[in-house]
C-alpha cells in the first residue's frame, strides 16, 4: 500500500527522531534517566468473514481496507456469537471497525439500530464523520447522527425516528434519552448494539455513575423487549475485562491482542538538573519541557505537549508563542487545547492539527483520548500524568502505524514523578493500573434509583443491577418522590431527577466566563463548579489561548465570572486548605504503637487567598485575599493516630512530631496513589486534630505550622491536648471506594512509605520523599526526613 513518497517521508522522519535523541543525549545525557525503545510491530491480518456482505466489503476496499487486522476479525466473530466484547488496542489500530462492521451489517440486513457512546462530543463527531465516509464509499444507506446538547430541538424528532446509529455521550443518555424513552420507543425496540468507546475513562466517580446509567439503559431495553450486545473499547489498562464486566454487570469477552502495525517508539525519561543539591531542588519540569518543545519544533517535528493543569497549558502556550508566534502577520504555529474552550475553537484546533498547519499544540488530558488529530511526531509530557496507563496513552498520541515516534516524560519535583524517572526499570515493566469503579456507592446509587424510578415504576422485590431495591424505595417514598401502592412504586414528584444529577461532578452548574472588555458581553470559557473557587476568584488572572484576563466580579450564585483583558505580567495561583473532622468510625485496628481507622469525615475546603507569580522568573510578587463560601464534603477516609504519651516519649517537641506527621502524610499519599488509579485529586491528604480544632500546614520553609479552624496561626502551647491525625480521604461526597481498600492494606502502605523515604537520595527531605523542604536546619537538629521516618516507624508493626 505504500508508495515511494510515503517511504521517503517515513525514513526521514525516523532519521529525524534518532537525530534528535542523539543530540539530546550528547548535550543533556545526565538528564536522561531512561531510554526505552519499543520495537516496531508488524501487522497481523485476517480475512474478511465469509458472511460479510459484498457491498460492505467493497466499501471497505474503496477506503483502502483489503483485509482485516486480527483483532477486528476476533471482534466480529464474538459479536456474531452474541457475546459482549471489550476491545483493548492502542490508538490508531483500527478499533472502530471492530464495532462498525457488525453494526453496519445489522443495520443493513435487519434494520437494527445502534447506540454509540463517547465520553466527549468531539469524539462523537469524529465518529459520525468516519461513518459517513464509509457509508458514502459504499452507498450503504446507513443513517448516523450525533445527538448531544448542541442538537437543535427540531432535528431531534427526526433523529429519534430515522437514525440507524445514534452517536451520543453518557450524559445525554442519562439526562435526555432515558427520561424520555417513550419518544425513543421505535429506536429502543430495534436496538441491537450498544457501543461504548474509551471505557477506561469511565472510572472513579464518573465511571460509577456511568455503570448506573448502563443499569438504567438495560432496564429500559428490557421494557422494550430487547437485549442489546455491548461492544466496548478501551485504552490499555490493567484490568480491561474486569472493568468492562463491572460497568456492564455481565460477563464480557476481552480482545487484547492488536493486529495493527505500529512504528518504533522511542521514550526518554527526563529528570531536570539539580540546582540545589542540599535541598534536592531541581530545575522546573516546565523549563525542560519548553526547551524540548523548542528543539522539536525547530527540527520540524509536529509536537504535542501535555500539561497537568489548564493553567500550565496557558503558561506553556504563552512561552512557546513568545518564541514562535511573535510575528502577528503570520498564521499561528502554536495553539492551546483544553476543556473550557468553546467547542468551535476546539474543532478549529483539531482541524489545524489534522491538516498540519500548526506545529505544536499544548493540551491537558483533553487530547489524551482518540480525538482525530492526525499524525504527530513528538509527545512531551510535562510531568507524570499520575498513572502508567495515562502515560502510555499520552505517549501514544505521537506516532501512527508506520512512523517512528518520540516521547519524553519530563519529571516534576513531585514524589511520584521522581519515583518514576529514578526507576526506569519500574516504568518499563510496570503493568498499567486497574480502573476502579464503585457502582454501589450509596449516594450515586440512590441518585440513579431515583432516575430509574422516574423512567419506569419499580415493583417490590425488583433489583437494580444485582441489588434489591426495597430499602431504597422506602427511603424515596418517605421523602415524597415515590408513591407506594401495593407492590408498585411510582414516581410522583413534580421534578426531573436526571436534571439534578451530573455524571461528572457533584454540584451542578458550570460557571461561564464573560469578557466585558470595552463594554462587550462575550462568553469566552466555561469552568466547572469544582474548579471555580480555585480559578475564578476576584483578582484572578484567567487565561484563554494564553491571553490573560482579570476576573473583576464573581457572581457565585449566578455562576458567572466577569473578566476583562489585562496586560498583567503575572499569573495567579490559589492558596487553599482543608480541615477535617471525624464523624463516624466504621472499622479500626492497631498500627504499630498507634491505631488506624476507616470511617466517615467532614471536610471543609477554604480558599484563603492567592499568590501572584511573575511570568518567566516565577517569583512571588504579592498576595491577594479571597472571600468565597467554604466548600463542604462528607466522605470516607482512613486515618492514623498515636497517643499523646507515645508522641511525647518519641519526639523531643511537638514541633518535631508535627513535622513527622506532615512528612509521613506526604509519603503515604504518594504510595497510596500508586496503589489506586486515582484520578488527579480523587485521593487527598491532610493532617489535623481530628475534631477540626486545628489543622497543620507547611510554612514556606517546609516546617509544620499550627492553624486554628479560622485559619489564624496557633502555637504548640495553645492546647494541653495534642492529638495529630493523619488523613487520607476520598475527594468525593460519600466516598468513592478508595479509602476502604487502602485501610485493608494500611500496614503495607506504612512499610512502602518507610522504604520510599529511607531510600531517597536527598539529605534532609525533598519533594520526592517527604515534600519540599527549604532552608537549612541547624546542626544537631533532626531533619524533616528523619522526623518522618521516626513517625512512620511508630505505625509500623
Amino acid at each position, binding site marked *: 500500500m505504500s508508495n515511494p513518497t510515503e517511504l521517503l517521508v517515513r525514513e526521514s522522519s525516523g532519521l529525524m527522531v534518532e537525530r534528535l535523541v542523539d543530540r539530546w543525549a550528547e548535550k543533556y545525557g545526565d538528564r536522561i534517566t531512561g531510554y526505552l525503545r519499543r520495537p516496531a510491530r508488524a501487522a497481523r491480518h485476517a480475512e474478511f468473514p465469509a458472511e460479510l456482505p459484498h457491498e460492505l466489503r467493497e466499501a471497505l476496499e474503496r477506503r483502502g481496507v483489503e483485509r482485516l487486522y486480527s483483532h477486528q476479525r476476533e471482534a466480529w466473530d464474538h459479536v456474531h456469537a452474541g457475546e459482549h466484547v471489550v476491545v483493548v488496542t492502542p490508538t490508531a489500530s483500527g478499533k472502530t471497525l471492530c464495532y462498525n462492521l457488525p453494526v453496519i451489517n445489522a443495520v443493513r440486513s435487519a434494520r437494527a439500530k445502534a447506540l454509540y457512546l463517547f465520553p466527549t462530543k468531539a469524539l462523537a463527531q469524529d465518529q459520525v464523520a468516519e461513518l459517513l465516509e464509509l457509508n458514502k464509499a459504499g452507498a450503504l444507506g446507513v443513517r448516523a447522527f450525533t445527538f448531544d446538547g448542541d442538537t437543535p430541538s427540531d432535528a431531534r424528532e427526526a433523529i429519534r425516528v430515522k437514525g440507524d446509529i445514534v452517536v451520543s455521550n453518557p450524559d445525554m443518555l442519562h439526562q435526555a434519552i432515558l*427520561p*424520555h*424513552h*417513550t*419518544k425513543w*420507543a421505535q429506536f429502543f425496540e430495534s436496538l441491537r448494539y450498544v457501543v461504548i468507546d474509551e471505557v477506561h475513562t469511565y472510572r472513579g466517580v464518573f465511571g460509577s455513575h456511568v455503570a448506573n446509567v448502563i443499569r438504567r439503559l438495560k432496564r429500559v431495553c428490557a421494557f422494550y423487549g430487547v437485549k442489546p450486545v455491548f461492544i466496548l473499547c478501551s485504552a490499555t489498562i490493567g484490568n480491561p475485562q474486569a472493568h468492562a464486566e463491572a460497568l456492564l454487570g455481565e460477563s464480557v469477552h476481552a480482545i487484547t491482542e492488536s493486529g495493527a502495525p505500529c512504528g518504533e517508539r522511542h521514550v526518554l525519561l527526563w529528570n531536570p538538573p539539580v540546582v540545589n543539591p542540599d535541598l534536592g531542588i531541581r530545575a522546573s519540569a516546565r523549563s525542560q519541557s519548553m526547551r524540548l518543545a523548542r528543539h522539536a519544533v525547530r527540527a520540524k517535528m509536529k509536537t504535542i505537549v501535555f500539561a497537568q493543569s489548564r493553567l500550565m497549558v496557558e503558561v506553556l502556550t504563552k512561552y512557546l508563542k513568545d518564541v514562535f508566534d511573535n510575528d502577528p502577520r503570520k498564521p499561528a504555529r502554536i495553539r492551546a487545547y483544553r476543556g473550557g474552550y468553546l467547542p468551535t475553537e476546539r474543532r478549529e484546533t483539531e482541524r489545524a492539527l489534522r491538516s498540519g498547519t500548526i506545529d505544536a499544540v499544548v493540551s491537558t488530558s483533553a487530547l489524551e483520548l482518540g480525538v482525530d488529530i492526525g499524525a504527530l511526531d513528538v509527545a512531551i509530557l510535562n510531568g507524570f500524568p499520575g498513572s502508567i496507563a495515562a502515560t502510555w496513552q499520552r505517549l501514544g498520541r505521537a506516532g501512527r502505524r508506520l512512523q517512528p515516534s518520540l516521547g519524553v516524560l519530563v519529571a516534576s519535583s513531585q514524589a511520584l514523578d521522581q519515583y518514576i524517572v529514578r526507576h526506569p526499570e519500574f516504568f518499563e515493566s510496570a503493568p498499567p493500573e486497574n480502573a476502579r469503579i464503585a457502582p*454501589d456507592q*450509596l*449516594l450515586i*446509587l*440512590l*441518585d440513579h434509583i*431515583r432516575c430509574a*424510578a*422516574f*423512567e*419506569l415504576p419499580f415493583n417490590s422485590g425488583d433489583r437494580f443491577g444485582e*441489588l*434489591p431495591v*426495597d*430499602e*431504597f424505595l*422506602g*427511603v424515596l*417514598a*418517605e*421523602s*415524597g*418522590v415515590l*408513591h407506594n*401502592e*401495593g407492590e*408498585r412504586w*411510582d*414516581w*410522583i*414528584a*413534580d*421534578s*426531573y*431527577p*436526571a*436534571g*439534578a*444529577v451530573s455524571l461528572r461532578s*457533584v*454540584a*451542578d452548574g458550570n460557571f461561564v466566563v464573560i469578557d466585558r472588555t470595552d463594554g462587550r458581553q462575550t462568553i469566552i470559557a466555561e469552568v466547572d463548579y469544582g474548579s471555580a473557587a480555585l480559578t475564578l476568584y476576584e483578582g484572578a488572572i484567567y487565561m484563554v489561548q494564553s491571553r490573560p484576563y482579570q476576573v473583576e466580579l464573581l457572581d457565585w450564585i449566578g455562576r458567572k465570572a466577569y473578566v476583562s483583558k489585562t496586560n498583567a505580567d503575572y499569573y495567579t495561583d490559589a492558596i487553599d486548605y482543608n480541615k477535617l473532622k471525624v*464523624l*463516624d468510625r466504621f472499622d479500626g485496628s492497631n498500627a504499630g504503637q498507634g491505631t488506624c481507622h476507616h470511617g*466517615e469525615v*467532614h471536610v471543609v475546603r477554604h480558599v484563603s487567598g492567592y499568590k501572584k507569580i511573575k511570568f518567566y522568573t516565577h517569583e512571588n510578587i504579592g498576595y491577594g485575599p479571597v472571600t468565597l463560601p467554604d466548600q*463542604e464534603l*462528607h466522605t470516607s477516609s482512613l486515618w492514623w493516630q498515636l497517643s499523646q504519651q507515645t508522641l511525647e516519649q518519641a519526639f523531643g517537641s511537638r514541633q518535631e512530631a508535627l513535622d513527622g506527621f506532615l512528612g509521613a502524610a506526604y509519603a503515604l499519599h504518594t504510595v497510596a496513589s500508586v496503589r489506586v488509579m486515582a484520578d488527579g485529586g480523587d485521593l487527598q491528604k491532610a493532617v489535623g486534630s481530628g475534631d477540626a480544632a486545628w489543622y497543620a500546614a507547611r510554612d514556606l520553609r517546609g516546617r509544620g505550622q499550627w492553624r486554628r479552624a479560622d485559619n489564624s496561626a496557633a502555637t504548640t502551647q495553645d492546647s494541653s491536648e495534642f492529638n495529630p491525625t493523619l488523613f487520607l480521604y476520598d475527594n468525593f*461526597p*460519600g466516598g468513592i471506594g478508595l479509602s476502604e481498600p487502602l485501610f485493608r492494606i494500611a500496614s503495607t502502605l506504612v512499610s512502602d512509605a518507610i522504604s520510599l523515604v529511607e531510600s531517597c537520595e536527598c539529605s534532609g527531605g525533598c519533594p520526592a520523599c517527604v515534600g519540599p523542604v527549604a532552608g537549612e536546619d541547624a546542626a544537631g537538629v533532626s531533619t524533616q526526613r528523619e522526623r518522618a521516618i521516626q513517625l512512620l516507624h511508630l505505625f509500623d508493626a
Partner: protein
Amino acid sequence: MNITEQLRRLRKDLGIAPIVASPAVSTQETTPYAEALRRLLRTRERAHPVKLPPPAGKTVAEGVQLVEHVHAYEASDDVVLPRDEARIDRRRLLCFDTETTGLAGGVGTRAFMIGVADWSENRLRVRQLYLTTMAGEAEMLRLFVSWLRDDTVLVSYNGKSYDAPLLKGRLRLNRIAHPLAELAHVDWLHPTRRVYRGVLPNCKLSTIERDVLRIVREDDLPGAEAPAAWLAYLRGQSSRGLARVLEHNRQDVVTLMRLGDHLGELASR
C-alpha cells in the same frame, strides 16, 4: 452526623423534602447497605393513608372515576377552522385537557385527570376521568382512547406540545395502542396568538377567557396547584382541592369550545 444529615446537605437542590428523623427499625432484606440505609430510614413511619371517598362521579374501573355534565350550548352544526377556513361537522370535535402531576416533563410526569367536551344537538357533554389510585392509570387511558373515533378532530390549547405528547408517552408506557398520532388535532393556541399577541398582556387561556370571552370563574384553582391537590387526595389528606381541580378542568374544556366559535367568527368576518 449520619448519612441522613449528609444526604440532607447534599440533596438540597434535588427536590427532595427533608427527611424527618425518628427511630424506626427496618425488617427488610439485608443488603451491604442495610447499616447505612437503616440510618437513612430513620424516618417517620407514614401512617397508612386513609382512603377518602372520591369527591365526585361514579367508579367506572378500579381507581378510575367518571364525572359527566351536560350543558346547553346553542350553536351551528358546522364550525370554521381558523387557518384554512374549512367547515367541519361540530360533532367531530373533541375538546380535551389534562391535569398532570407536574410540569417537569419526561416519562415520569403523568396525567391524573382527562377532561373532554363534545357537542351534539345544542348540548355540550363534558366527561372527566380521574384517578383515585395510581393503579387506575391504564384503565383511564383505555377509556379515553375508547372515546376517540376515526373522524375525531382533537381540540386543545397548547395540547400539541404538551398534553398529546404526554398522553402518548403514558400510553406507550402502559402498552396501549392508540390512534392519537393519526387524528386531526387543532391547537387553538396558535391562531389565538396570531390574533392577540401584543393586544393582550399574554396568551394564557385564562387571560383570553377573561378579557375576550368575558367568562368569569369563581373560586378557580390555579392550574399550578392541581398536582398538590391530587396528591393530597391520594395521600388521604383532603379531597377538597381535587373537587376544585375537577371544576377548573371542566371550565377549561367548555372554554375550548367557546374559543373555537370565537376564532371561527373572527375568521369568517
